[in-house]
């Protein structure tokens, strides 16, 4: 793995509020190759905003030295180029299908639309591709589900439809923003399994954003730990126990472990000094 898919340098995202300027992301840098990168952090750590900033879809102000994808600097590219890249080369799976699917269109039509946007396919061809995709995400009776509306499908099925929709144009990189956080635990594993297969079969890069450290460590190759808009630490997934940063260690200690003997569950102690790290680099692609 030599050339990274995505190269982010010094990315910042800020919002203007009545109380002043809020910096959601502060000068972070990282690279993603054809691998699975997890971005872990609590609410407000800036992980979601990072994902959106890559696609140019955050309402905040984005500043960066580069956001480079396949030789194109997404930060400075014209709107048409970005639109061509969205969906076709980089895609994003969102958290809750109840809200992220258009309520007045059938799910099948929405999947087909994702295909037609980037190809010259006819309606029938697109429908066929959509049906094939529904089968790939292991939905039985794709014909019937094609004609359903979002409010008629369960959470797990909705996320599979979302996956189908986002992967149908065949992107190289997929950003999954809390893809299983809105699902029941049992359904989470099924959806993750499907995502796992598809990412592997198609050789895609994956950025997996979540607040669940253990989930990310079992699913991804590398992990970025974010706090306060900055990257605290970069870890290999298998090397969690070698974490050095006190925040990461604190996070790990907060989770109850059946094998560990401890009296009280420790509380994460935050240190203001972490906020002044200024950016933080996500390490190079190995």
């Amino acid at each position: 793995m030599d050339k990274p898919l995505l190269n982010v340098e010094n990315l910042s995202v800020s919002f203007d509020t009545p109380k002043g300027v809020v910096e959601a992301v502060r000068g972070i840098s990282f690279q993603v190759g054809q691998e699975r990168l997890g971005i872990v952090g609590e609410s407000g750590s800036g992980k979601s905003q990072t994902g959106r900033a890559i696609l140019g879809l955050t309402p905040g102000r984005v500043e960066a030295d580069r956001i480079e994808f396949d030789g194109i600097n997404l930060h400075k590219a014209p709107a048409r180029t970005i639109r061509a890249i969205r969906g076709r080369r980089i895609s994003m799976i969102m958290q809750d299908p109840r809200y992220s699917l258009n309520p007045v269109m059938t799910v099948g039509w929405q999947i087909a639309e994702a295909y037609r946007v980037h190809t010259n396919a006819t309606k029938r061809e697109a429908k066929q591709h959509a049906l094939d995709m529904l089968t790939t995400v292991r939905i039985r009776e794709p014909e019937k589900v094609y004609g359903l509306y979002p409010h008629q499908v369960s959470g797990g099925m909705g996320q599979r439809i979302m996956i189908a929709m986002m992967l149908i144009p065949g992107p190289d990189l997929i950003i999954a923003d809390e893809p299983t956080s809105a699902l029941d635990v049992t359904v989470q594993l099924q959806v993750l399994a499907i995502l796992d297969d598809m990412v592997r079969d198609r050789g895609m890069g994956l950025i997996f954003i979540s607040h669940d450290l253990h989930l990310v460590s079992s699913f991804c190759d590398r992990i970025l730990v974010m706090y306060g808009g900055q990257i605290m630490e970069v870890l290999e997934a298998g090397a969690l126990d070698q974490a050095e940063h006190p925040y990461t260690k604190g996070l790990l200690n907060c989770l109850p472990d059946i094998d560990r003997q401890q009296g009280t569950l420790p509380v994460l102690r935050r240190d203001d000094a972490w906020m002044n790290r200024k950016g933080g680099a996500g390490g190079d692609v190995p």
Partner: protein
Amino acid sequence: MSQDTANAKTTIEAAGRISRSALPSRLFAFTKHGFSILLTFVGLTAITFIIGRVMPADPVLAIVGDRASNEVYEAMRLQLGLDKPLIQQYLIYLSNILQGDFGTSIMTTRPVLDDIIRFFPATLELATIATIFGVFLGIPMGVLAAVNQGRLIDHVIRIIGLFGYSVPIFWLGMVALLIFYAGLGWLPGPGRIAVYYDGIVEARSGIILLDSALQGEWEIFWNALHHLVLPASMLATFALAYIARMTRSFMLDQLNQEYILTARVKGLSEGAVIWRHAFRNVLVQLITIIGLTYASLLEGSVLTETIFAWPGIGQYITTSLFNADMNAVIGGTVVVGICFVGVNVLSDILYRIVDPRSHD
């Protein structure tokens, strides 16, 4: 549980959700609504009954007028059944309404229903044209404002809208007549049609534009059209303002939703995002708004018709008011009230048909 069983389970659940919207539940919802509408109708008649018969000191006098002879007075008193208990009076009143009997007008000495049928098309004409303008101008304006939120065009449209629903329409009509009729002479004065054309066209639908076009009387058609411009513009100003405002509000709501983000992630053009995705969700709500607009215009015509001497139901009611012709006032109120309720019911039904979420 294996993967396949889990899949099967979810698919069966989904299938079950579809079949649940089968006939019995639809029927139930329908009767529930029908009952609700019925109740509103009863309420409307009850309130007009109270206003017309219970509240006046002497309801008979209110109906026959103070110039009526003693015999007429006595006859009406018996007809109204004022000696009977209130409930019975109300039932008589209600059954009369259902048969279309609103009593006789003092002014015109015709049955009130005949008068209403005569004058209603003029009001319908105004309200319909104004609503059409409001819809075809107001919706694009609202979308434009929402998409460009905070920029100049948004502020301009908001101010236009603000003007439209803050202005007293009768006053605006007067000013418009002053400028365009008296001042510039571009448009004709009050009235539905020039005096010398009155009565030439046979009134089949009651809508002069339609009748004259069907009978090939094009001079009369243009004359009627010219007379229509000012009063319809006044009402259209309000309709446009209201619809633009609501469209903007709904679009802003939708543009903040997650599924809009999804649409953008898919790489759709802004146009597709706005019109195919956001607007499609707004359309559903706009149906209710358009219904409300039409109903408001039916009502708002009351004052506009006075200014423009437009022979519609609004003018009928106000003239009857000044002549203390209670039957006519109450009759007109009931009819407009029914139309009001009717339009709202219709838009409610349309809403349910168009919105897939209300199908279950």
